[in-house]
């Protein structure tokens, strides 16, 4: 068991070391706890495994021989006096077995110590030192892991809030709407759980908000349609001179409608039939239901049927999900309040003077970013960091449309400030954007004369640093010389 524990300790140290090294390369939440758990688990498992392992007679003999028996016990297990070829051989084997038995009798079991404990313990010691060194050297990933953990806590809380809000909203909804809202909540929950950062969470919340808006506008359309049908029926009835019926339909009063239908004569029934022919959809169905009262039918039932037909469309009216809406709004506010100044700035390619604009910054983060493609929107840097690589992210979920929605400048706080960007070419595929105080405004115009000089200077410098022929460089210089002269 001691040997197993020693091996386990060495193995655990190796696992812990691997975990600590990995935590420097990739973000692993609670890496130190995991490393500790790996150490403990390996030690216990190896000790248990060693304890449960069945030790054969031969292994026991070899172990005992290591304690001074000098292979006596192992040999005694291997030889048999009966197998000896002659008398002297038999005598020798008997003496050997007797000798081994005597040596075993004199052996102190306490002296039997695992043979190779020293090596695993030395390995564990080295591992321990390396782990300590790894723990002492600051790890940049720790901060990220802590942020991620905080985000997870926040997302869990948000998920719970969203579920509660959905339950509150369910009270006044139809079954279909309830189903849709539950689906939306489930999807939101799943997306939030999968979120790796604030941007992911924002995308998820925004998607949910959009879906909720769509659901609401869809139900609003149905209610409108039903109202229009009632209106059309009422107007048709008025035109046909059936004012009492028109009033009852207009008021939505089923009782009044039943009374009006009760005293209906054949002429009225015929008029109702004509009205039904004029109409379509729910209005037609309601008119037909009303007409059925004149053919010896039950006026009360006909009225009920007609009103039901009209009510069907406006059963719930516009879907009410205010709690959910509020929850989503507060989630967005909470997300933007984490300090990551989300920002979207429109880039004018390489042209200087293109201004960035702070986005939905929560705590005054005035990050600025720029894409290197014309008119492309990019997510901004986090916090107050004013630098951001201009290389667009290839992840499909960060497509332009997504960011247009989330970082729509129109939704930005009023307190934004304009920024002026200056680009610096770092390498083949990277452009650094330096944000600073802006010279222009987003919607305003900048006089051409103010920017053309800088434009010319930047492009001439770019031409000099590019792999161009002398003649090509000369063309660029000539072009900008003429351009500035014209001005």
């Amino acid at each position, binding site marked *: 068991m001691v040997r197993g524990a020693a091996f386990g300790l060495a193995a655990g140290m190796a696992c812990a070391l691997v975990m600590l090294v990995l935590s420097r390369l990739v973000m692993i939440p609670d890496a130190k706890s995991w490393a500790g758990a790996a150490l403990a688990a390996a030690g216990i498992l190896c000790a248990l495994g060693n304890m449960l392992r069945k030790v054969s007679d031969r292994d026991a003999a070899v172990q005992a021989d290591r304690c001074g028996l000098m292979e006596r016990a192992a*040999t005694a297990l291997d030889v048999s006096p009966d197998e000896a070829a*002659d008398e002297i051989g038999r005598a020798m084997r008997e003496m050997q077995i007797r*000798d081994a038995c005597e040596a075993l009798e004199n052996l102190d079991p306490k002296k039997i110590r695992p043979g190779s404990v020293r090596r695993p313990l030395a390995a564990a010691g080295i591992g321990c030192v390396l782990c300590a060194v790894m723990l002492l050297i600051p790890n940049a990933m720790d901060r990220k892991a802590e942020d991620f953990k905080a985000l997870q806590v926040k997302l869990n809380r948000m998920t719970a809030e969203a579920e509660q809000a959905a339950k509150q909203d369910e009270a006044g909804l139809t079954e279909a709407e309830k189903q849709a809202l539950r689906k939306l909540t489930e999807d939101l929950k799943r997306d939030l759980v999968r979120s790796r950062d604030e941007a992911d969470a924002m995308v998820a919340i925004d998607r949910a908000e959009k879906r909720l808006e769509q659901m609401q506008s869809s139900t609003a359309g149905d209610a409108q349609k039903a109202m229009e049908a009632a209106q059309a029926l009422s107007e048709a009835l008025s035109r046909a001179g059936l004012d009492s019926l028109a009033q009852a339909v207009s008021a939505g009063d089923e009782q009044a409608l039943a009374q009006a239908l009760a005293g209906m004569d054949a002429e009225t029934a015929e008029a109702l039939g004509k009205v039904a022919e004029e109409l379509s959809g729910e209005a037609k169905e309601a008119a037909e239901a009303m007409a059925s009262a004149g053919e010896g039918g039950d006026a009360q039932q006909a009225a009920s049927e007609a009103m039901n037909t009209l009510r069907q469309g406006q059963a719930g009216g516009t879907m009410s999900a205010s709690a959910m809406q509020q929850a989503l709004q507060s989630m967005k506010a909470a997300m933007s309040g984490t300090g990551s100044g989300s920002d979207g700035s429109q880039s004018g390619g390489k042209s200087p003077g293109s201004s960035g604009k702070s986005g939905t910054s929560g705590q005054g983060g005035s990050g600025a970013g720029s894409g290197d493609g014309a008119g492309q929107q990019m997510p901004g840097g986090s916090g107050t960091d004013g630098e951001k690589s201009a290389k667009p992210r290839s992840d499909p979920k960060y497509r332009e449309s997504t960011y247009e929605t989330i970082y729509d400048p129109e939704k930005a706080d009023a307190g934004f400030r304009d920024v002026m960007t200056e680009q610096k070419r770092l390498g083949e595929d990277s452009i650094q954007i330096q944000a600073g105080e802006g010279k222009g405004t987003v919607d305003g115009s900048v006089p051409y004369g103010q920017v053309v000089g800088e434009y010319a200077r930047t492009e001439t410098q770019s031409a000099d640093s590019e792999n161009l022929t002398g003649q090509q460089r000369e063309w660029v210089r000539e072009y900008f010389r003429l351009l500035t002269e014209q001005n």
Partner: protein
Amino acid sequence: MDMNSEIRGFAEKYEQLRGEIAQEMIGQADVVEHLLLAVIAGGNVLLEGVPGLGKTHLVRVLSKVMDLPFSRIQFTPDLMPADITGTNILVRTGSGNEFRFQEGPLFSSIVLADEINRATPKTQAALLEAMQEHSVTVAGETRKLPEPYFVLATQNPVEQEGTYPLPEAQLDRFMFKILVPFPSLEELGGIMNLTVGESGKEARRVMGAEELLAMRETARRVPIAASVQEFALKLVLATHPEQADAPETARKYLRFGASPRAAQAILSTARVRALNQGRYNVAFEDIRYVAPACLRHRLALNFAAVTEGKDMESIISGLMNFSD
């Protein structure tokens, strides 16, 4: 004497042999130990050391304590095979002349082949049959040599000019190659007292040929555990650089490995040592003790080993650790 007493008496007799040899041989305990192991196991021994270390004297003392016929051959470049094996000579008898076989110095129980590497390969090769088969064939007639029979050869490692290094086939016939070191200050003082002083101690006979053969038979019966035997065999296999699982040391520094005779030598001498130590079984320790003497003349270092200054002892030690 019953079997048990005979087995128990083995170690006692061995101690007596060692004690008597020590009367005339100061120091060199390890050399004496190895020599006795090989002789009791029935093998030939190659003693290597600079002149004047008492190699020849040791063999003489051995023949005295074992009471065995001894002959000494000083190998020289002009020594011919017939000089050592014997030859048919024409002798005059009463009925006329006839050829009669005149036995050479090989017809003795202990043959000391002094400076064996000075003789030509032809003469060296004449020893092969005697060493392995314990017989001599002259003019188509094979003659058995007396038992026990063993060749103890010496060679000087420093004077290599005008010598004929022993071929691998002949080296393989030697059970042990024993390196005779220079004596320490204390041992040197003892040697001086013994040889040029007053001391006149002489070794006495301890046993005869019969007893030696009986000891050899007893040693052959010592049981050996499978794991111990496997260790010895793995060690021999590990000396082969061409083996797929050969250790890095063998691959890097050895030209070729030991033959199965090496494994035989290791196991038979380890058995003798086990009895000497008062055990009735072979231990790993015995294998480790005899292996260097069994392997050092059976392995050949390659050019890389020579240029890197590797010696055979460290390589064998590395191989033993690998096989463990």
